[in-house]
């Protein structure tokens, strides 16, 4: 089996993670700017059945890295120990907020802040990791050789801000798609700011990387590559304009789909810049791939598990398709118990209200 197959599987897991957890993190990022508590209830409800399924792909990606590219795992995890742990804490806090926010009236503001802060911090940490990754990781004798704060780079901060904007854009696209009325209007409005933030950060990051990373610059600007790759930034620019124009259009899925396209282009740009390195400029995927026996073991496992996970997640999304209020219509009244009009319901009733949805 070729290492590029494992790279493709890992890339797929990362792309699905970024798109799937991206929009639910984005909904969390938009949480504090939503106008009313009722909107926040609906926003949380729109992602409650799926957010943890989306995070499956983070685990999948990490495990695949551990099994298929062990050197990347044991070099990159120590190198990004602090931002990775911080991201996990943010995701943990966010998960707790999902469970506790609906149980309380007095501490609702606290859980609001935990949910929004967790989403924001997780997105920012992912940007820090990505930025540090592209700038390169110091290695000696095959292990990480640097300080705990080596991850902290200007590019990382820029990418963190860009990811916050990008995830917020995905979240807005999701809300436009899945909600109606004043919440949808809010999502359409806030989508503009998110797009400006994402596009500006994307342009800055690209320019900064091209200026400071010679290897990346030569990959993009040397002949004949520039002939093939010149369309990429042009398509990206066209896509940004298209998203801007989609925000007030009657086709409610368009913003989400185009934003996903923007992320795909960004990821493609990343692969073009770094290929074939699994640790930039030091270890290629062929040098970093695990030995033949483990490859067989991991390959069989991935070939079995990945389609199953994809299938049941697709099924879950299909079950939960449509507008949020239509979904309420399908499953009847119990969802009503989860909104603000009946705050402070006991744990007991929340369980019953979740029952039919599952």
């Amino acid at each position: 089996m070729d290492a590029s197959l494992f790279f493709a599987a890992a890339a797929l897991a990362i792309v699905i993670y970024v798109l799937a957890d991206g929009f639910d993190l984005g909904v969390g990022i938009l949480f504090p700017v939503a106008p009313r508590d009722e909107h926040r209830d609906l926003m949380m409800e729109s992602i409650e059945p799926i957010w943890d399924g989306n995070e499956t792909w983070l685990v999948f990606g990490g495990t695949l890295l551990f099994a298929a590219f062990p050197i990347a795992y044991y070099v990159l995890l120590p190198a990004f120990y602090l931002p990775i742990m911080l991201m996990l804490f943010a995701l943990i806090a966010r998960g707790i907020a999902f469970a506790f926010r609906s149980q309380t009236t007095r501490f609702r503001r606290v859980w609001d802040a935990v949910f929004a802060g967790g989403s924001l911090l997780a997105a920012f940490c992912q940007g820090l990791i990505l930025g540090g990754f592209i700038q390169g990781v110091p290695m000696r004798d095959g292990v990480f050789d640097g300080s705990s704060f080596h991850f902290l780079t200007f590019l990382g901060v820029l990418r963190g801000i860009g990811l916050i904007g990008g995830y917020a854009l995905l979240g807005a696209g999701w809300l436009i798609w899945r909600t109606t009325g004043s919440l949808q209007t809010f999502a359409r409005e806030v989508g503009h700011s998110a797009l400006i933030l994402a596009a500006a950060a994307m342009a800055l990051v690209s320019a900064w990387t091209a200026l400071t990373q010679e290897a990346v610059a030569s990959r993009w600007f040397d002949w004949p590559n520039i002939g093939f790759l010149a369309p990429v930034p042009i398509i990206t620019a066209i896509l940004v304009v298209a998203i801007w124009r989609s925000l007030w259009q009657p086709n409610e899925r368009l913003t989400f789909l185009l934003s996903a396209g923007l992320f795909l282009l960004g990821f493609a740009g990343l692969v073009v810049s770094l290929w074939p390195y699994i640790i930039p400029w030091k270890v290629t995927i062929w040098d970093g791939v695990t030995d033949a026996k483990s490859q067989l073991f991991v390959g069989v496992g991935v070939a079995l598990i990945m389609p199953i996970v994809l299938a049941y997640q697709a099924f879950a999304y299909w079950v939960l398709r449509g507008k949020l209020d239509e979904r309420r219509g399908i499953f009847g009244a119990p969802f009503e118990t989860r909104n603000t009009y009946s705050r402070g319901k006991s744990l007991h009733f929340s369980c019953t209200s979740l029952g039919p949805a599952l």
Partner: protein
Amino acid sequence: MDAQANRLEVSIPRLASLYLTHSWDGKIGGLRSVAPADQPYVPLVFFAFRIMVGVGLILLAIAVTGAFLRWRGRLYDAPWFQKVAMAATPLGFVAVLAGWTVTEAGRQPFVVYGHLRTADAVSPISADAVTSTLLLFFIVYNVVLLAFLWFAARTVLKGPARTGMTEQSPKPGLDRAAPAVGGARPADPYGGPLPSPGE
């Protein structure tokens, strides 16, 4: 520990041989067959193992007692037993933690027994970074524990919702004297009617 001797023991001959080597006359290498440099800190493993097994025996005794009381039809009339069962609730956690201590401490000084020593497996992460995240884990988990206790206590203190169940059986749980299920309202797994939309 330096004497490499256990001064107090009750032994069942051949039992360990049976379950470790699956034969009646198997040879089990004791602690003395392991070089001192490859030995774990024995008192920790020694007592953790005995705590684990001791708790297991206590729980087994409680289970057998409960089965006996149930058989005699006195399970719901023995408050002393119910108090014992309540008091035993945390013991499972104690056993799990002790058992975990046995495996982790007992495997030292290796992470992969016989192949990779713990000292060689340390990653190049600074101890300060690990300490700070460990501290964070400690804080987060305790906050979650407190929040859980808060919400659980509130739910428990509120008590179960009124249902038709109480009319059938004055005692909680299953009861041999209770009428057969036929004709009775099927048990609601959530113990209450769904709230009406306006509630």
